[in-house]
């Protein structure tokens, strides 16, 4: 937690003939993140195992079967696992069997598809001729006549008539085009062809068929029998799929592992008699690893740390789900703080603060739990776990806000039962609090308190971000840099916060919240020269802000001017950006309020239709309620989700998180269908 797992850089050195054995062992341990080697005078990159090409061919074949069968290894929970020796023993046999059971059938299906396509093409030629109604033998084989049979886009008869009157045209409509048979003396043939081409002529090859009708039904029968055959073969393949799924995937896994091992020399340096392999392993596994390698007759040594180790995030189980959100932004570098735990705490809280509705929260939770059973891949599982946390937090905040599919109390002269379909029940539920929500965010006072609270959260979160940044810079570049780069901003933001408090004090926010005295009628900002009697506006917050901002400015100039020159001073304007980012936390209130009012409007319209003065149409009302709430729920998942993420990415991470690390990817693989 907070830090990626500690790594040590190691070298594995041994005699060349041990390389295959070592590859086997390393693959089984699944521990070493191998660094890509650089060649030198004596050490060259090794060559893959001679068997590699054979294995690779088999692997390609297996993968083509698996992709044709649409087997998804992440969705299949193996009923039994295979032993490696078991697969090794029957590998050849099984490959041949699958070639027969699947490979040949796939080939056959392909040939059937081709046949069907060619038959359908024949049909497409005969159908229009049948419509024309002229027997095939009359359509060709003349000596003194030219015959044209085909499709045209417009009727060419008039154009023909301009050339000669001695011709015959038969035409009929076929699928929005015209089918024509044109008979004319051979001497006019070329002329007629030109005219036909102007009309968009496409020739039909006249087949040697006695009876179109009979031929068509013959072809159709053939297509049908081919299709039946195809279905039959597909069913057979499906049977194989059901029966052999695990075996297929186990063999694929075995071959992939084999391939990894055979190709290990490509990531290893070899000399005439020895090999060297450089990589990282987690520090806590080092002793065990060294002992295993020693007994294998291979030397392991710890190297000096130059270059950056890969990052292996290590978080407790529940927090691990949120690594998805962290790594979407960037992979923490080895020495950086891993912010996953903060996003794990604040993401659901922010989501809940925004959505804050018992009904919607319940739906989000149930939906996530249901989808978890459908989508089994790791990425989906993590995302849906996040959905469950977010949903539960929404329920908690929904209870605090007193909302279940919308509020049951809104400003104005409405009774709960008038504006909410279960308004009376909700009012009853909150009897312990005199029929009012614990915190009512729709009435004016609630909005004010929440607005102020969100800005406080913003200030706290941004200061916290800079504090983490202080630590990161301190570790990487030392204390002085950290003070100049991050502590200066902490002071600057504190100064800003004081100005915000001062402003809030002067406009009477503290007084209205009941935590401060009445400031009376004073100018909100004590700007000398701009406001008359600005002295009255001075309060302790403004006075506290002054030294903070002065120290901030001095530290900032000390930090920026050596780097940027005198122009660096202008960058102090950036302080205003932090003001914007503090205000940005007001969305915690704003997004929520918008969805509350949408829900209220939906309920209001629905109730008006169900229980109006005139005619009641309960079904229409129910439909409006359902469609409206589904739409609002979709918005309610997307928007708070994205906004909560954004508050982390933009306003929080940018203060300390640089990213750009590499993920720890050990040599080996997690076996799902093969047991050790």
């Amino acid at each position, binding site marked *: 937690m907070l830090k990626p797992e500690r790594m040590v850089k190691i070298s594995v050195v041994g005699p060349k003939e041990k390389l295959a054995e070592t590859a086997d062992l390393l693959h089984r341990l699944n521990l070493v993140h191998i660094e890509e080697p650089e060649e030198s005078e004596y050490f060259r990159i090794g060559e893959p195992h001679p068997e590699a090409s054979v294995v690779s061919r088999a692997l390609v074949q297996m993968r083509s079967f698996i992709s044709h069968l649409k087997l998804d290894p992440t969705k299949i929970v193996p009923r039994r696992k295979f032993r490696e020796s078991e697969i090794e023993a029957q590998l050849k046999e099984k490959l041949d069997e699958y070639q027969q059971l699947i490979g040949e059938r796939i080939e056959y299906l392909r040939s059937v598809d081709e046949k069907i396509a060619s038959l359908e093409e024949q049909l497409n030629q005969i159908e229009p001729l049948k419509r024309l109604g002229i027997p095939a033998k009359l359509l060709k084989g003349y000596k003194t006549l030219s015959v044209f049979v085909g499709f045209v886009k417009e009727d060419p008869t008039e154009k023909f008539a301009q050339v000669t009157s001695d011709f015959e045209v038969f035409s009929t409509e076929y699928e929005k085009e015209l089918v024509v048979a044109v008979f004319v003396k051979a001497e006019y043939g070329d002329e007629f062809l030109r005219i036909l081409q102007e009309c968009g002529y496409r020739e039909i090859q006249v087949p040697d068929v006695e009876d179109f009708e009979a031929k068509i039904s013959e072809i159709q029968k053939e297509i049908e029998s081919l299709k039946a055959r195809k279905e039959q073969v597909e069913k057979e393949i499906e049977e194989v799929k059901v029966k052999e799924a695990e075996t297929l995937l186990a063999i694929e896994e075995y071959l992939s592992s084999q391939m990894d091992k055979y190709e290990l020399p490509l990531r290893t340096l070899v000399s005439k008699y020895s090999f060297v392999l450089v990589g990282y392993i987690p520090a806590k596994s080092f002793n065990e690893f060294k002992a295993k390698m020693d007994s294998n007759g291979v030397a392991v040594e710890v190297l000096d740390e130059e270059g950056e180790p890969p990052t292996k995030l290590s978080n407790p189980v529940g927090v691990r789900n949120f690594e998805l959100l962290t790594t979407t932004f960037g992979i923490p570098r080895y020495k950086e703080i891993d912010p996953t735990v903060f996003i794990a705490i604040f993401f659901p809280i922010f989501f809940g603060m925004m959505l804050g509705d018992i009904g919607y929260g319940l739906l989000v939770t149930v939906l996530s739990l249901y989808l978890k059973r459908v989508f089994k891949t790791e990425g989906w599982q993590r995302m849906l776990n996040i959905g469950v946390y977010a949903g539960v937090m929404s329920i908690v905040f929904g209870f605090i806000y007193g909302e279940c599919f919308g509020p049951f109390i809104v400003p104005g002269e409405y009774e709960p039962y008038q504006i909410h379909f279960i308004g009376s029940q909700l009012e009853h539920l909150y009897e312990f609090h005199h029929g009012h929500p614990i915190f009512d965010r729709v009435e004016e006072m609630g909005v*004010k308190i929440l607005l102020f609270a969100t800005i406080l959260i913003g200030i706290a979160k941004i200061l916290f971000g800079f504090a983490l940044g202080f630590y990161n810079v301190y570790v990487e570049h030392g204390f002085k840099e950290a003070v100049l780069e991050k502590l200066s901003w902490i002071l600057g933001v504190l100064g800003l916060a004081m100005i915000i408090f001062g402003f809030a004090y002067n406009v009477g926010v503290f007084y209205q919240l009941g935590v401060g005295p009445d400031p009376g009628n004073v100018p909100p900002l004590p700007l000398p020269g701009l406001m008359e009697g600005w002295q009255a506006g001075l309060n302790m917050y403004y006075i506290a802000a002054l030294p903070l901002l002065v120290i901030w400015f001095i530290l900032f100039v000390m930090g920026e001017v050596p780097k940027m020159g005198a122009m660096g001073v202008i960058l102090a304007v950036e302080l205003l950006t932090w003001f914007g980012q503090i205000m940005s936390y007001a969305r915690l209130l*704003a997004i929520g309020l918008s969805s509350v009012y949408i829900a209220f409007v939906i309920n209001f319209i629905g109730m008006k239709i169900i229980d109006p003065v005139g005619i009641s149409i309960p079904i229409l009302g129910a439909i409006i309620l359902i469609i409206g709430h589904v739409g609002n729920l979709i918005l309610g998942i997307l928007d708070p989700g994205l906004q909560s993420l*954004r508050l982390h990415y933009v306003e929080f991470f940018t203060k300390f998180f640089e990213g750009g690390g590499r993920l720890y990817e050990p040599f080996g693989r997690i076996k799902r269908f093969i047991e050790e």
Partner: protein
Amino acid sequence: MVEDALAKGLIAVGAGLAVGLAGIGAGLGESGIGAAAVGATAEDRGFFGLGILFTVIPETIVIFGLVIAFILMFAF
């Protein structure tokens, strides 16, 4: 009394304008960034996180508008 109602109405109109115009501005800003971010994500999935970050940056403008609206509604 009439003047009071008028003032209230104008404040409401002002609050609406603050949010609405800020929204239009943010939308205009976001459209270009969003299109570019989707393009970049199509090239490289790893850009997704950064893409979201860039896309939502102008959204803060709306929050400013909203804060102004609240100040108008409550402080006057």
